[in-house]
């Protein structure tokens, strides 16, 4: 048996064990990048084989909690891909404005950069007071960071640049206070956000919403799980509701392709039929 073939068998067993023991389902994640993250975890926990790692993860919930950082990918920025937020402002906000109350779902919100970006955008458009944002993720540590809204001050230059390119009407500095190392975002933005644990792999729809923003989450799913997740988005959205994906994501290879139309193709904003 070749070593790499054995690695894939052990990886399958690990993910199956994690699902049965902790009910977190990574079995339909894309394999190629998962392999790499598991190799990193093996280094971190000083394991020679995936089986050794499996033993630690299954027997020690504290190790499992740390493993969530390896099972998922947390890379984000405020106003990442500014043209996406600009398109939301120009093409989606005018429609949202016609609703008496607005519900938005940020699925896979990770450490919250995009949630805070949306809250700022909605405040500038005068809509935040009548909006509820559901920010969901499977990772409690990420959710805690998201809820905190405190980011390394060294990231602010990029965030500010993105904010302006996204059509920000003020200055990003209006929305945070600085300490030596951190930018602490305005708590009043947070009053309209509900942070919650939710899995696109195992949970169901929890509310009707007008906009789903789920960016750079689907690329870590295989086709089956992409189908499941996009079906959830479809079922959660009102008719003519909006779906925003990552710059290089699309519905094209999913079962939901015919249930949406492209509203802003360049920024991957779809409208439910």
């Amino acid at each position: 048996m070749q070593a790499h073939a054995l690695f894939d068998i052990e990886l399958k067993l690990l993910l199956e064990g994690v699902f049965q023991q902790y009910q977190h389902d990574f079995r339909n994640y894309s394999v190629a990048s998962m392999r790499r993250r598991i190799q990193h975890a093996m280094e971190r926990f000083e394991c020679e084989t995936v089986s050794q790692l499996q033993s630690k993860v299954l027997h020690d919930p504290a190790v499992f909690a740390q493993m969530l950082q390896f099972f998922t990918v947390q890379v984000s920025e405020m106003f990442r891909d500014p043209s996406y937020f600009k398109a939301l402002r120009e093409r989606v906000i005018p429609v949202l404005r016609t609703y008496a109350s607005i519900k938005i779902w940020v699925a896979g919100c990770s450490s919250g950069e995009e949630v805070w970006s949306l809250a700022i955008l909605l405040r500038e458009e005068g809509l935040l007071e009548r909006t509820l944002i559901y920010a969901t993720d499977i990772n409690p540590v990420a959710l805690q960071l998201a809820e905190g809204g405190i980011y390394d001050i060294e990231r602010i230059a990029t965030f500010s640049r993105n904010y302006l390119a996204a059509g920000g009407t003020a200055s990003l500095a209006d929305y945070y206070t600085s300490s030596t190392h951190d930018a602490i975002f305005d708590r009043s933005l947070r009053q309209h956000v509900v942070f919650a644990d939710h899995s696109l792999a195992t949970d169901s729809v929890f509310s009707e919403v007008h906009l789903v923003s789920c960016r750079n989450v689907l690329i870590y799913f295989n086709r089956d799980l992409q189908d499941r997740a996009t079906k959830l988005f479809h079922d959660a959205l009102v008719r003519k509701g909006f779906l925003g994906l990552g710059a290089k994501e699309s519905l094209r290879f999913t079962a939901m392709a015919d249930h949406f139309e492209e509203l802003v193709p360049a920024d991957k904003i779809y409208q439910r039929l």
Partner: protein
Amino acid sequence: MTRESTAAPVVKFVAIGASAGGVEAVGQLLQAMPADSSVAIGMVLHVPPDRPSQLAELFGQRCALLVKEAEDKEMIAPGTVYIAPPNYHLLVEPDGSFSLSVEDAVLYSRPSIDLLFESAAYAFGENLLGIVLTGASSDGAQGLSRVRQHGGQAWVQDPATARARTMPQAAIDLARPQRVLALAQLVSDLKDVMTRIER
């Protein structure tokens, strides 16, 4: 041709990595490709991440094969040249589709040649040909040695004929490729590989 195809495993996928000087080298290479092939090509070319990439269009005009930016979960089709989108890693899944990822840069690079090669090695094993061209980093060396470990073939552009020699040299040192070729010869040999058509 017949003799070689019985001696060496059939190539189904060619993974190519290039960096500094790569646009020119890849351009020469794609220009020589036949109009039809049973082999697919996946490519990482380092370009500045903040500029929208026109590489697929640029190369498409000069290549008889379809050249396109690889999309997430797209099944790899024969006779197609796929280019990694800027700022995303390009990976091959076991079922022969692509995945994209925005995980951290590897050796300061996203897309990373190593990650494409390594994942393609898992997916295609001995049916993979990995090629490292000109470049000024050491990206690709690790990946190419993975290609070898999985039974695939490894070719490297002769550093003496490369605009930047660091990357091919690193690949030679680490992966000990089967062939080290001047660019013109590499283009001609690849054309032979790509000329295979199965119906």
